[in-house]
């Protein structure tokens, strides 16, 4: 007989093993779905997870997709660790892209080493401004940050839509909903000839290192950790709770804004309607899959990035919609949450004699 028993304490080994278990279960369930759709499961999974990264170009694409996911997830980990549920990173990304894109357009047809830093900075500020809205509403008016940050995503997308169709649309662009191409000085440099991977990856890596340092080595990180465990304790210790909430939102917004900058000054090179294939939402999965730990987030962003690539190959070779990628992302989160049950409970086998 199998009995479910509560653990004395959450298991630390299980804490790091469940993400792997979740990925494994996702593969099993994914294979099953492919089988039901009439494909050979192993072949389909190969198209999805191995073929896309089998060559140099594929690997570059993997890093290209993982970069924004990692950057945003690192930012979100600041919010989530302190119990602030910012789920509007997609909006902060979009608004960061709008602000930095606007600045890049100001320097249209100009050259200069100073342009790129200004554009990058503008993106970070844009993201911060946008994230400050739910933060201020939460701290001073007790609104729910989940609703506010989520709703603002759609607002930012409509603003972008308006700008690329209207005032910012390319005068020589035959009414396509897009802006002019940015000048080369406003573009992130490519790392290798012929591959799309760009210098934005260094922003992501810097974010990883900085967040590790802040979390584990600074007073600020300590205060965030305490506030995350218990706001009552934070209050008792005398930490400035409101400032902390605003700060984590600003950090998170800056990261999302930078991810937006990376997209438009990297592979895209202009503003158009779709600056992000929902990186801001997918990064929530990445943050949790990586257990809100900087190193975990690196691995998680690589795993989730494959689902984007796999969906594209699957569309080309198997004629199934690329939204299969989102199915896989959903399944990863689902199985992760389900296997978290094992953190607190274990199975005990008992002989049914007596």
């Amino acid at each position, binding site marked *: 007989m199998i009995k479910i028993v509560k*653990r004395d304490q959450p298991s630390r080994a299980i804490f790091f093993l469940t993400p792997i278990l979740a990925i494994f279960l996702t593969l099993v369930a994914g294979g099953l779905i492919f089988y039901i759709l009439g494909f050979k499961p192993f072949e389909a999974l190969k198209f999805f997870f191995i073929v896309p990264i089998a060559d140099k170009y594929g690997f570059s694409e993997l890093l290209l997709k993982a970069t924004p996911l990692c950057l945003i997830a690192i930012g979100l980990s600041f919010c989530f660790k302190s119990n602030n549920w910012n789920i509007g990173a997609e909006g902060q990304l979009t608004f960061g892209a709008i602000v930095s894109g606007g600045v890049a357009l100001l320097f249209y047809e100009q050259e200069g080493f100073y342009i790129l830093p200004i554009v990058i900075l503008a993106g970070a500020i844009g993201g911060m401004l946008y994230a400050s809205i739910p933060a201020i509403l939460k701290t001073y008016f007790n609104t729910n940050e989940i609703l506010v940050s989520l709703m603002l995503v759609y607002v930012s997308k409509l603003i972008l839509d308006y700008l690329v169709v209207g005032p910012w649309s390319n005068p020589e662009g035959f009414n396509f909903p897009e802006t002019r191409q940015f000048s080369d000085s406003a573009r992130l440099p490519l790392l290798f000839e012929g591959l799309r991977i760009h210098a934005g990856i260094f922003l992501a890596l810097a974010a990883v290192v900085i967040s590790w340092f802040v979390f584990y080595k*600074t*007073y600020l990180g*300590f205060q965030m950790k*305490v506030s995350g465990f*218990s706001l009552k304790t934070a*209050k*008792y*210790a*005398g930490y400035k709770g409101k400032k902390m909430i605003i700060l984590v939102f600003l950090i998170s917004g800056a990261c999302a804004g930078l991810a937006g900058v990376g997209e438009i000054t990297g592979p895209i090179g202009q503003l158009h309607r779709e600056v992000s294939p929902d990186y801001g939402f997918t990064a929530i999965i990445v943050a949790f899959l990586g257990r809100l730990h900087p190193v975990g987030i690196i691995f998680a962003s690589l795993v989730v990035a494959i689902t984007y690539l796999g969906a594209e190959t699957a569309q080309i070779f198997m004629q199934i919609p690329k939204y299969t990628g989102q199915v896989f992302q959903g399944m990863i989160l689902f199985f992760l949450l389900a296997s978290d049950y094992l953190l607190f409970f274990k199975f005990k086998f008992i002989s049914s004699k007596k």
Partner: protein
Amino acid sequence: MNTNLKISNVTKIYPGCVANDNVSLEFNSGKIYALLGENGAGKSTLVKILSGVIIPDEGKIYLNENNLKLNSPLDAKKNDIGMVFQHFNLFETLSVFENLIIDSDEERESLREKIDSIMRKYNFSIDLDIPVLNLSAGQKQKVEIIRCLIRNPKVLIMDEPTSVLTEQETSELFLSLKKFSEEGILIIYITHKLKEVMELCDEVAVMRRGKLVSVSEIKNENIESLANKMVGQNLKTIKKKKEKTSSDQLINIINLNFISEDPFETNLSDINFSVNRGECLGIAGISGNGQSELFQVLSGEIISDKNSIEFNKNYIGDLNPQERREYLMAFSPEDRLEQAAIPQMAIFENVALNNFKSSNFFNNGLINENKIKEHSKKIISDFNVNTDNIELKSQFLSGGNLQKLIIGRELITSPDLLICFNPTWGLDVGAINYIHETLIKINEQNKSIILISTDTDELLKLSDKISVIHKGKLSKIMNADEVTSEKLGILMGGGN
């Protein structure tokens, strides 16, 4: 008819702790039984087994020779076992009557008659049609008791029933329990208060660390003998030398008010008091009368008017707790696991929660782990915290050790004033003694204490002056040696 309840070889094991170790007991109606033991002795587990909340790993329960299968609280009810828990299980917004009939399928009319006759019989006077939230704690408990009586129970179990009651309500409860017993209801009374056992019960079973240590008749026992059985060792009694304290004023609270936006909090109105150096001011009261709000206002978790708190000749009403610590105040909140400490964090990290500038725990925004650890080791040895591993998560400390760590953390900075709120709540007698000794010692060093507590005995033992808080208002401040627990009881209930 005689009722016989037998517990036979009951064992319940939790991970890391044997809550009940082969316990066998027998009860007969006509007597009131006390089940006595410290927190964690296993008495709550045992009564939860009797009421079907917990299923034992081994052992059997017999009622009048019938083997009972108690898999849920409903089974216990069906077998005429009634239970009144320490914390009330009532719907605050429903009326008394609705609460009483909620788990019954009898007709409303006949139930109403039945309830009326029970109330007449036992002299209970409660308005059945007002919402429960308007009742006092004693009345709420009566509602719980009536809910059991409706089912004509053979057994009535009371789990620490007096923890929320005033002295007067307690004596009323005792009268009712004696009446029930005379009518043939078997009563099992769970407590750790020795005086109540002596006053109320006929027989006493003492539990310690999951084991039954003795069963005896009350007439053969006295308070000391029971205390020693309960703790398992001879306890020294602590007494404070109440000398004349200085007239050097340390803290002065002037017309302090607090109006909460939260309807479940208590407003404080016109709080005025002062504490001199070397003095302990006790604040008594039934929980929920504004103690928590008063603590927060004094600690700075709730900020008030700058001039409402004068400390050491500075006005500090508008400062937060960390800023107040710099003026040499220290705070020990009521809730150890949710406020005073973070169970998931290591001992040394919990020590860093009391951060004051001269400690150098954090330099230029960076954590100075060595400094914190050094400091933590000192606290552990100075305050007898029973561990040598400061990397241990604080959730693995027992309640007593955790409280020593918290008090130690607050006192090691040698503050002028310690404000503590129920510092010994839920602790075993050994730890309580240690905390009491520590508090007496700091008074002797000419430091002051504000002790907010719901434990009247503790207050009478430690305080030089006592005031009572009732509905957010303080009574006048009395000298502790002029006060009796009866007088406090009257003030706590809102009388004069």
